[in-house]
């Protein structure tokens, strides 16, 4: 029982950054814009959190700074993909490469320094009375709780409110949404910025909670795994929760096997999440070969009133 409990906790702690990034990505892609810059945004979020937290020692300031940077980068992405109607795939690649370079440049002075524990834990000893599940939830940190709230809030927002209906409409058919009187371009800006903030927080969470030391390229492909998770979760926040924890568990699996003292070299264990990502996507593609993937219909197609592409 103890080992299962440990595994679940580990899956939550390494899955939370993935969850934030996936939720941000879902919000952006639901509005019809492809988001591939998650890796760069996460790196920028992580380095900003590290720099500001080391400077000020305040979690609030650090998170605000992360939000600020993410808003800025989100606006660049939105300007390119919504206003200029650039190729959204290349746009995301540019974001990834620029984010990687800039974060490495900015993070040089704090590279390798340990960051003190920043995110307070919500201790609720009374929860331990609940059999089994209670122990898991009794000592989680604030950001993890925030991610739980966010999953439910986003699910309700997307599926139960009229704004969510508008969001889905503009992702499936922006022209129809436009005719309905929704300001497609303005809302796409808004959703890109909001999603970018979540992805930035994913980076901050990775740095402040999961591995509290800044190193160059510390996300090691998590942004791209989040991109895969969006497809895996079929653009649904609730499914994103389980998918993120599944991949979080995979991430941890390597460590666990190593701790047991297995003969398998650690390099192969570290490959597990990457290979499983590909296999899962292939399985999904095979299973849904004659079905719609659940992706927004107009994903990746720029929209401008009265013009066709």
């Amino acid at each position, binding site marked *: 029982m103890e080992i299962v409990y440990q595994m679940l906790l580990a899956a939550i702690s390494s899955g939370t950054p993935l969850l934030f990034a996936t939720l941000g990505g879902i919000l952006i892609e639901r509005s019809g814009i492809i988001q591939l810059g998650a890796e760069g945004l996460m790196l920028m979020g992580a380095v900003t959190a590290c720099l500001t937290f080391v400077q000020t020692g305040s979690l609030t300031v650090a998170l605000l700074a992360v939000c600020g940077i993410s808003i800025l980068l989100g606006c*660049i992405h939105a300007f390119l993909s919504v206003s200029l109607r650039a190729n959204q795939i290349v746009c995301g690649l540019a974001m990834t490469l620029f984010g990687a*370079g800039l974060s490495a440049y900015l993070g040089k002075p704090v590279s390798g320094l340990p960051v003190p524990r920043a995110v307070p834990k919500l201790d609720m000893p009374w929860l331990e009375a609940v059999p089994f599940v209670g122990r898991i939830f009794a000592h989680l940190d604030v950001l993890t709780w925030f991610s739980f709230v966010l999953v439910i809030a986003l699910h309700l927002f997307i599926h139960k409110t009229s704004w969510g209906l508008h969001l889905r409409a503009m992702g499936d058919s922006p022209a129809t949404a436009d005719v309905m009187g929704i300001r497609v371009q303005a809302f796409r800006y808004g959703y890109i910025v909001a999603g970018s903030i979540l992805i930035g927080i994913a980076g901050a969470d990775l740095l402040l909670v999961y591995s509290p030391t800044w190193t160059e390229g510390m996300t*090691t492909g998590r942004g791209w795994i989040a991109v895969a998770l969006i497809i895996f979760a079929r653009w649904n926040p609730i499914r994103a929760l389980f998918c993120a924890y599944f991949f979080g568990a995979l991430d941890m699996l390597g460590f666990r096997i190593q701790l047991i003292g297995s003969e398998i070299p650690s390099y192969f264990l570290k*490959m597990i999440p990457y290979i499983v990502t*590909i296999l899962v996507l292939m399985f999904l593609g095979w299973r849904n070969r004659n079905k719609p993937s659940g992706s927004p219909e107009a994903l990746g197609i720029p929209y401008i009133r009265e013009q066709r592409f």
Partner: protein
Amino acid sequence: MSEHEPVTQKDGVISIPPLRGQRKWKWQSYRIEIDTAKNGATWWLPFVSVLLALLVCGIFIAANGMNPFPVYKKMFTGAFGTAYGLTETLVKTIPLLLCGLGVAIAYRISVWNIGAEGQFAAGAMAATAVTIYFPNMPGMLIIPTMIVFSIAAGGIWGLLTAIPRTYFQVNELVTSLMLNYVALLALDYFVFGPWKDPEGMNFPGTKVFTASQSLPVLGDTRLHLGLIFGLIAIVLYGFFIKYTRAGYELRLIGASPEAAKQAGIRISRHILLVMLISGGLAGLAGMAEVSGVTHRLMYGISPGYGYTAIIVAWLAKLHPVGLIVSSFLFGGLIVGGFSVQTIGLPSSISEMLQGAILFFLIAGGTLSKFRLRKIR
């Protein structure tokens, strides 16, 4: 739709007010719109993009408390100013040229291969495997064998991306990037594990190659035969695209996948072919790097050549001659990035510049398609 004013009739002319949201300036006689027919290729765009990227990154350098002008001057002279710097730039040009050509072929038909880094590593590993498992191969045979093995390894690594894409509808961006990490981890395993040089004082690298396993170099510089490989590949690419049937079909798919499908071209087969070539070229780059420059497989063999290649291909607008110019420029950028380390700046300055250049390129690419239209 209350904000739409009614249609008015004045002097017998019906004027319809513009829809809200349409870009319209206050004085109402011009409208900005996109010209979809215009191909946004303007010759000055790459130059402007590079200049603007230098400007933006200059702000970051200034924020770091340095004057950007001496920094850029140092980068420029470090890369192009001396004979040593120039040959070093050419040495870095070789992998960028081969990888850039590889991704450019894939981008022609909108197959977003970002796995050049992994394919590069696969090629480097395959070439090294030849030297390790056939150490006594005759001198004439060894280099061609290494070339064949590295191209095959890179090509197979590329196919690992193409097969999920064609048969399982898996997004090739995610697959190719995941495979990068897999290949780099495999490389780490070999250089830290079974292939580590026992007399290397724990250095994570294989045994140094013998003279017959190394590519010939020019004089006493580090410039090696790989440059010729790159130039030959460029010529072959130009010929292939322009004068062969498969090349014509590739151009057709690139211009309009729908039309190509109607014309009976099997797109999935072309995706496999293109990824095979793309991976093979990156694999060859890996072989040239281990055999020509480092003379051993070692940890961190590529400072992100595979990623820089993406920008190289875009800056060149996927054009063969442009590829030569842009890979030379980015080779210089990498060397320049290393040379500013002596004045206490991180070499990631060049990565930052690369990302910024790509941003301005894509912004400019669409901006140059905009036109002002007079409304009567």
